[in-house]
């Protein structure tokens, strides 16, 4: 099938990302609805489950070679310091120490743009890299670490975001802590002041959200190995190509010589999208000592140095008319990037979720002496939605309107920036079905439930992108026995990528799913596919896999036509076999055909289609929470969450539910538990392990009901798939916060909502 080269636009945050991509010349035939399909949409257990339940799946954490050496990173104990001297001589003398890198002997490689180096003489947060030690065993490397004598000149530091913006605060760089370039982002439409004037009620509130750490169960890490001049890196990563390019660039070598492989990996949630210094340091050391090197971060490093969800300090002013029309919303927000540049905004939901003609937002990204932020499942949207949905509930209460009716009143069918209609926005349906499932009718006024344990209901909505985009490619190979291999440069983070690729291929080629083998996460073996972030994996790669499988089918039919000497039009493909439509006995199976063709492997490569220009592609949804609050102890228990979303086609009901459950529990965690705590006097993080950094266990898991209101989104792609990983988490904290308010009648405007805050709030009310 022919291809064309196009300019492709995708939207993510403020960026209208323009890529040049190769896409199918013609629109593909649309995949039928799930009810007419055999494998797609069904509850197919994941194809890699067996390795996981038997513990035979090998993670980077488990990878080993006979002569492997171990790397450890010495990290700064201070939030801000200059290394005055560093003496590694004692450590080097220790038996078993193979190599030590410090800023003195490490190659000069820029990191975080030009803000730092692979190993820098200035360290800007507790956890910043100081030295890299490679030794025969981890224990020796650790011992060596304690023998390195570093003299630091400690500098005045600031770890609190709102302190850092004060004039007299210590500066992390010469420039102010809000950098002159891209430190401030402004957005407006309509006239905010005018909108406020036209409102019947106006309220203004402050909201804060905490810094949260991804904390996947498998820590970050790499195993590196040189084979002549080729570097092989096994990495626990969300993006093999992005890792490859950073490593090749850092080491100044051809990308073709760096092979990045991701086999099994234990979760990422955004933290594993970019390359870590550890991979590059390990590669440098490995080359020198001529042995493979393994480096795995410990839990403390995980909590200090590999990213977080930045905090937010949001001031929102919003006005509405008595009839429920939102007239204006304004937001000022400060969020910390940490010590190096990163995203830290939260304004998108306020700007796009509801119809409002007058918007003004001012956001500031602030440097502090803390670990740098990284994308974390729906960056900005989780924080922003919590604040937005809290203030909207307050507004609704003020004008005495049911909060659900208030949202429906301010529904917008178009994207208010581009004025384009959405490909699909079944949010009203979602409201209706969700409200019914949670029994919204039974909701009482705030604080009206009696007894010590009070019950409340609340909800919040969600907007996200997640439409995917080109470029993304997949190759389907069919062998002579009819077995198939699908190659794609994507990753499976546990999300089920292996499974959905198998399903699509099995559906189109009508062959048993266990005759399909999927190879992903290997830069050397697979065609390109993007990193797995932004809920774009399934929407980007599913059309490419579908295209490749369709082409394979077309190729088989065309070949059969030649072999059987019957025009292709008169042939039917069914269950791995091609036959003459009017005479089924005149047939040939795939294996026989390929044998006849004297081919050994048939190949077809598919590409992701171009995105539409006429519509905006987004996902929508609502979540309702049913909670109870013990007013004696301040404990919150979430009884039930109902999630009703418009997310295009369901590829696999099991993996879909997994994503929703996981996202919702992560949202619950953000609402009630997750929190990095820093001691303001020492600048040190107090929550560096699972003991102090709490995440839910199975006992905190409420009942969860997932309702999908969409069947398909054919305007997006032939598969009609949109992403769900992030949409699943976005509304949960807002829904829980609103339910807590409904239960106790007191607002907690800062996350996480802990027993501490509830009890204090209840008590200060008297």
């Amino acid at each position, binding site marked *: 099938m022919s291809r064309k080269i196009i300019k492709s636009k995708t939207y993510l945050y403020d960026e209208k990302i323009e890529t040049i991509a190769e896409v199918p010349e013609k629109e593909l035939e649309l995949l039928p609805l799930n009810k007419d399909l055999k494998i797609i949409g069904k509850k197919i*257990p*994941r194809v890699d*489950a*067996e*390795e*996981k*339940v*038997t*513990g*035979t*799946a*090998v*993670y980077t*954490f488990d990878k*080993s070679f006979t002569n492997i050496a171990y790397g450890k990173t010495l990290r700064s104990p201070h939030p801000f310091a200059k290394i005055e001297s560093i003496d590694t001589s004692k450590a080097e003398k220790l038996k078993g120490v193979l190599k030590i890198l410090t800023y003195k002997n490490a190659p000069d490689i820029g990191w975080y743009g030009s803000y730092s180096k692979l190993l820098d003489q200035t360290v800007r947060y507790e956890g910043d890299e100081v030295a890299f030690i490679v030794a025969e065993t981890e224990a020796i490397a650790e011992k060596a670490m304690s023998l390195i004598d570093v003299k630091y000149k400690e500098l005045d530091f600031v770890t609190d975001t709102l302190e850092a913006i004060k004039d007299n605060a210590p500066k992390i760089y010469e420039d102010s802590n809000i950098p002159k370039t891209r430190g401030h982002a402004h957005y407006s439409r309509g006239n905010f002041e005018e909108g406020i004037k036209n409102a019947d009620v106006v309220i203004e509130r402050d909201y804060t959200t905490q810094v949260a750490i991804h904390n*996947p*169960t*498998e820590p970050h890490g790499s195993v590196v190995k040189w084979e002549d001049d080729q570097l092989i890196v096994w990495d626990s990563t969300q993006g093999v190509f992005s890792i490859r390019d950073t490593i090749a660039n850092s080491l100044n070598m051809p990308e073709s010589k760096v092979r990045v492989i991701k086999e*099994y990996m*234990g*979760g990422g949630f955004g933290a594993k999208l970019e390359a870590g210094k550890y991979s590059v340091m390990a590669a440098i050391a490995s080359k020198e000592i001529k042995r493979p090197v393994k480096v*795995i*971060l*410990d*839990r403390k490093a995980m909590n200090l140095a590999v990213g977080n969800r930045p905090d937010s300090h949001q001031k929102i002013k919003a006005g509405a008319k008595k009839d429920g029309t939102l007239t204006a919303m304004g937001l000022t927000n400060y969020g910390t990037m940490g010590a190096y540049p990163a995203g830290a905004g939260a304004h998108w939901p306020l700007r796009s979720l509801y119809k409002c003609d007058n918007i003004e937002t001012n956001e500031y990204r602030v440097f502090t002496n803390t670990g740098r932020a990284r994308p974390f499942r729906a960056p900005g949207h989780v924080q922003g939605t919590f604040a937005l949905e809290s203030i909207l509930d307050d507004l609704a209460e003020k004008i005495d309107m049911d909060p659900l009716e208030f949202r429906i009143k301010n529904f917008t069918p178009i994207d208010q920036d581009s004025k384009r209609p959405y490909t699909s926005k079944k949010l009203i349906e979602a409201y209706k079905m969700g409200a019914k499932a949670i029994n919204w009718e039974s909701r009482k006024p705030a604080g009206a439930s009696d007894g*010590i344990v009070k019950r409340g209901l609340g909800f919040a909505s969600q907007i996200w992108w997640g439409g995917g985009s080109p470029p993304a490619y997949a190759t389907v190979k069919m062998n002579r026995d009819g077995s198939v291999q699908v190659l794609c440069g994507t990753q499976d*983070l*546990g999300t*089920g990528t292996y499974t959905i690729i198998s399903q699509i291929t099995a559906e189109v080629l009508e062959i048993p799913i266990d005759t399909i083998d999927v190879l992903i996460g290997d830069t050397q073996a697979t065609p390109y596919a993007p990193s797995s972030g932004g809920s774009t994996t399934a929407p980007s790669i599913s059309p490419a896999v579908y295209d490749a499988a369709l082409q394979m089918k077309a190729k088989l039919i065309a070949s059969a036509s030649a072999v059987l000497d019957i025009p292709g039009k008169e042939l039917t493909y069914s269950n791995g076999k091609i036959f003459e439509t009017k005479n089924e006995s005149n047939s040939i199976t795939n294996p026989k055909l390929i044998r006849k063709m004297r081919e050994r492997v048939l190949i077809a490569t598919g590409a992701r289609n171009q995105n539409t220009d006429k519509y905006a592609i987004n996902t929508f949804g609502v979540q309702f929470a049913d909670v109870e609050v013990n007013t*004696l*102890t*301040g*404990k919150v228990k979430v009884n039930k969450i109902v999630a009703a979303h418009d997310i295009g086609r369901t590829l696999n009901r*099991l993996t879909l*539910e*997994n994503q929703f*459950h*996981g996202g919702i*529990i*992560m949202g619950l965690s953000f609402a*009630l538990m997750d929190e990095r705590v820093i001691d303001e006097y020492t600048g040190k993080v*107090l*929550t560096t*392990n*699972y*003991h102090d950094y*709490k*995440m*839910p*266990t*199975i*006992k*905190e*898991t409420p009942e*969860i009901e997932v309702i999908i209101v969409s069947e398909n989104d054919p305007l997006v792609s032939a598969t009609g798939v949109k992403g769900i990983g992030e949409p699943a988490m976005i509304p949960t904290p807002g829904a829980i916060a609103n339910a807590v308010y409904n239960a106790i009648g007191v607002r907690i405007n800062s996350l996480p909502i802990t*027993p*501490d805050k509830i*009890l*204090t709030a209840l*008590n200060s009310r008297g």
Partner: protein
Amino acid sequence: MAQKINFILNNVELSVESATGKTLLDFIRKDAKLTGTKEGCCREGDCGACTVLIGEIINDELHYKSVNSCLYPIGKVNGKHVVTIEGINSDELTPVQHAYTEENASQCGFCTPGFIISTTGYLLKNDKPNIDSAINAVAGNVCRCTGYVSIKRALNDIVEEMKLYDNSDNVITELISKKYIPEYFSTIKERLKRLEIIELKESNKTLIVGGGTDLYVQREDDLKNEDLVFVSADAAEKIYKEGNSIFITGSTTFQELAHSDVIKELIPNIEEVNKLIASLPIRNSATIAGNIVNASPIADMTIILLTLNTALHLNDNRTVPLREFFLGYKTLAKSETEIIEKIEIQIPEGKTLFNFEKVSKRTHLDIASVNSAFIISLEDKKIVSCGLSIGGVAPIPLFLKETSAYLEGKDLDTETIKGALKIIDKEISPISDVRGSAEYKRLLAKQMFKSHFIKLFPDKISVEDL
């Protein structure tokens, strides 16, 4: 300091040369190179990725329990059976593995072997499975991906399937026949009996280990190359009644305490209380004596025992009342080498009522911000005797001597409680830390005190009155 330790790892008899303080996890992953057992890189009992089963013969019966191998000294497996995920696997998936597969109860899968082991261990322990206790058994396994709902479904499938079976006398035979565990489990009991048990040497008399669940979190580096002192389980009965006292031996674990009929007479809801403490694999290891000696101001079992007249019997024949044991923050009325052999509780006279409260950021598997225990005995309306303790509000686990004394002899009414609240305010001195501000803890302590009465006397005391 290596010495010989004999045990069975899965289906293989091993004789390992090692310091007894090395963690079982390091042995399994690094020496035995079995990588199915994961390390959630917490190494402090908080993730459950490293869970393994320990089998031992007790009263001529083979019993299994789950433990966190990251906190388990290899010396403690001397003469025992260690089961990792590799020891569960056979040619086809076990019904547990099958249920996890069918319900998609695994995403990235890094936590999964830990869940499979916890679930299998649960079946080995319970002949009458039900969903609540099954959930409890995996409450020490953290999963950041699945949101647990699919895991609950898998547990439910497993429990339902188990209900279909007749309960035979022997769980192990039963589970083998249903292919939950491999055939070789049937030979373990005999093979354990044949193991040559070598008495372990001790290199450092101050390194006394009960369950290790505090020690390994606090100072693994000091332990891993040493030969430790293991608190032995010599007595035939771990918990027994003698005269007017209950005796708890030094190696008694939380789980053993919670299932003791003797204790249930005194604290009927001890099983429920126990579930609020740590996780099952921790409770399978953690000892009452260790909880006391660790002297954390919020130690749950210690807080409970403080309400009672409790005395500690040390190995040099000294006896110290528990209420006089804590001299200051982590300073004890005991030398570094003294071992608690027995804990004696005087059984209070008359009918007593007991209540325990605990508030933490996360309800389960979390250390309390504040906890409190209360025991009371009434005659008509009069408080005959009582004991109140509160944790997290002083440098030591605190018995509130004055408040308790104030309450005794008074009528049970709102006035009395209000009066006591004033004394509590004076007796406690909380400080701010990660688990809450000082003011919050003060508030919480008083709320808990009220809660004791509201829960124990719902007809007499209501929240509105207070």
